[in-house]
């Protein structure tokens, strides 16, 4: 048992690090890269181009599409090093992590050639168009219609929670091509040109104030049949490939952790009026639990990396991480605010501790508990795919989509 790279991994990490130093400079402190603002976007695209030229993009992909056919652990290692340098990889994560692998798996040879290169070089950015207002946890229940018309498909409907739609050039779109079939069987996947007429992107105003996601509306948008991914009616299986790749792209914990709230506690009066918060045993016990949860999450990722470096593919157990992190984030944010007492209501970054990081956590965590699989859906996944418990009763089996009950 050790935390060392294998010889090959170590060599690769050293090369990667050297390249990053040459390309970016010194490792940077954790900062929030404001994805989407034109300046940082230019920088991100420039970085991605260099990365591709140096052969660090698409590490795990087949050689014929410009990859290096390395095992997944190597992209994890490169990602770790990029993180230390705060490399601006955000805008490309979904495209290269989910969309393009799907394109490679299901598109025609000439289209693959057309799309993979520009995406790798960062010239074109992709987004994923699955979720809809009435199809969140139940994505396969989506409404957006695609109707065949000559050589084209005509798209009408709406997607929601689309990250990066406003700066994306293309997207993979899951639409319903046959409402007469069972809901999973009437879906088809397409490549959508986000600049096509009839595509309208609107930012979503979040409860936290900001807007990190979009709604995308389709009004008689035409997609040539040559941009279909996989067979007509096979869209769900295509989507599963996309979503399987999502799981490999598990994000780390964001927001303040036990270390930050420990600092806060050193300089805050305890609610009991006896000394500071860090001397308060109730707080100390909470701190211990946060530490165990936070370290457990990090150590769990090491176990996943170990599996990867042994050539195994990590399963749905990584769902654990998001349940733990999102709820711990909400809990720590809330605890910090309450510890500040009446003053805790002040969210102004100029006055609140850590520039309002705890308040951001309080307002962000509810979204984190929902995005990319709610706490409840993730527990279902663990119960069914890890523990092998039976599915819940399915009332939509063998029923045509058009006959399914829906929101009143």
């Amino acid at each position, binding site marked *: 048992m050790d935390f060392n790279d294998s010889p090959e991994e170590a060599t690769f990490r050293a090369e990667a690090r050297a390249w990053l130093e040459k390309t970016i400079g010194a490792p940077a402190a954790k900062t929030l890269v404001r994805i989407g603002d034109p300046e940082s976007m230019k920088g991100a695209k420039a970085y991605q181009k260099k990365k591709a030229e140096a052969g660090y993009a698409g590490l795990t992909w087949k050689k014929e599409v410009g990859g290096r056919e390395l095992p997944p652990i190597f992209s994890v290692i490169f990602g770790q090093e990029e993180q230390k340098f705060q490399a601006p990889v955000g805008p490309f994560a979904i495209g290269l992590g989910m969309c393009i692998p799907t394109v490679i798996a299901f598109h025609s040879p000439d289209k693959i050639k057309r799309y993979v290169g520009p995406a790798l070089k960062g010239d074109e950015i992709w987004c994923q168009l699955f979720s809809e207002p009435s199809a969140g946890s139940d994505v396969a229940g989506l409404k957006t219609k695609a109707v065949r018309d000559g050589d084209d498909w005509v798209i009408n409907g709406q997607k929601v929670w689309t990250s990066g739609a406003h700066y994306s050039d293309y997207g993979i779109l899951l639409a319903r091509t046959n409402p007469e079939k069972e809901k999973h069987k009437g879906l088809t996947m397409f490549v959508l040109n986000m600049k096509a007429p009839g595509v309208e992107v609107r930012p979503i105003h979040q409860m936290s104030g900001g807007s990190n996601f979009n709604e995308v509306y389709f009004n008689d948008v035409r997609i040539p049949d040559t941009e279909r991914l996989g067979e007509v009616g096979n869209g769900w299986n295509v989507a599963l490939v996309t979503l399987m790749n999502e799981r490999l792209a598990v994000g780390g914990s964001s927001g303040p952790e036990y270390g930050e709230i420990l600092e806060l506690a050193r300089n805050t009066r305890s609610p009991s009026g006896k000394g500071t918060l860090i001397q308060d045993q109730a707080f100390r016990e909470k701190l211990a639990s946060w530490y165990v949860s936070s370290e457990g999450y990090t150590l769990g990722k090491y176990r996943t990396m170990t599996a990867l470096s042994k050539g195994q593919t990590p399963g749905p157990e990584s769902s654990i991480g998001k349940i733990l992190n999102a709820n711990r984030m909400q809990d720590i944010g809330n605890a910090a605010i309450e510890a500040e007492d009446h003053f805790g209501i002040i969210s*102004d970054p100029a006055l609140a501790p850590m520039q309002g990081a705890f308040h951001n956590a309080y307002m962000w965590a509810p979204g984190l508990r929902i995005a990319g699989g709610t706490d409840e859906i993730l527990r279902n996944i663990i119960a069914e795919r890890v523990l092998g418990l039976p599915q819940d009763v399915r009332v939509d089996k063998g029923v045509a989509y058009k006959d399914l009950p829906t929101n009143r």
Partner: protein
Amino acid sequence: MNFDFSDDQKIMRDQARKFLAEHSSRKAVRVVLNDAAKSCDMALWKGVAEQGWLGAAIPEEFGGLGLGGLEQCVLAEEIGRAVAPIPFSSTIYFFAEAILAAGSPAQKSALLPKIVSGDLIGAFAISEGPGAPSPTSIEASFDGATLSGAKIPVTDGDIATHAVVLAREGQGLSLVLVDLAQPAVKRETLTTLDPTRGHAKLIFDRAKAERIGKAGEGWQLAEAVLDRAAVLIAFEQLGGAQACLDMAVDYAKGRYAFSRQIGSFQAIKHKLADMYVAIELGRSNAYYGAWALSTESAQLPLAAAAARIAASDAYYFAAKENIQAHGGMGFTWEVDCHLFYRRAKLLAVQAGGPGVWKEKLVRRLELKNAA
């Protein structure tokens, strides 16, 4: 056994609910939420004054209705349910209660009628910075005639006309009354988690002020005011929590996933059942607080702590799980879930955070067992 509100009080509740549904709809609340310049609905404030709510518990000699604590609880619950954007708690639960508890006859007759009419907006200023205040942490000082120092945050301090301030006087602490309309008082408005209520930092530079109650009794007076306010705020919290549960039940019945109402999934059913349990637990403890409040019972300090702890737990749980039950929609600005998630946090810290009250509860329980 008659551990419930009277029929008259229930009629009053229904009327209050109807009035607020009309004059403090979620749409009306959002006008304040979305306008950074606004922190209060002045038309609504005038309205509740005309309804007589501001004078509900103020003796008739001062123009009030002379009703009791139970009627205040009934109103508080409805104000909480409506997330009403008015300085009701600051003016009534804190400022008016302080004057009633310790004000001189002159102070009472000068101030209370203005409260009843809605012309006076009161604030209660204790906090001077991060963390729970303690008798030794207060730095604002009163020299018998003027007040100097700073208070942050002061809820509704941006629009208040008067404030009751806890300040050092000689060796002890006193409550002092300040008319905020004087050059020696500066206000800095604050950005908070709950934009539907105003907050400010109040800076006093030898501001004219007069004492309320005896010198050196400020801390005890403040604690007494906080005990009464804790019960009333508990009802605001339960009103808010109940509104969250109602929203969640409604959504769970109308929203389908996997071709079923999501309310038919145990994950949602049990989440909502847990909300109900937390709210009923809060309600039982709050009722006891209401009884103690209305009877001036010696049980008030313990009952108030229990009510506040249970109600704060219930509101936070209901507010956050209401968002969760709504899924992605719940995380949007347009859906109202976050109004309650924000207000829940304000009410949980406004009169002292949970840790403060758990300690109060246990200390009071120890005294009771010792007695």
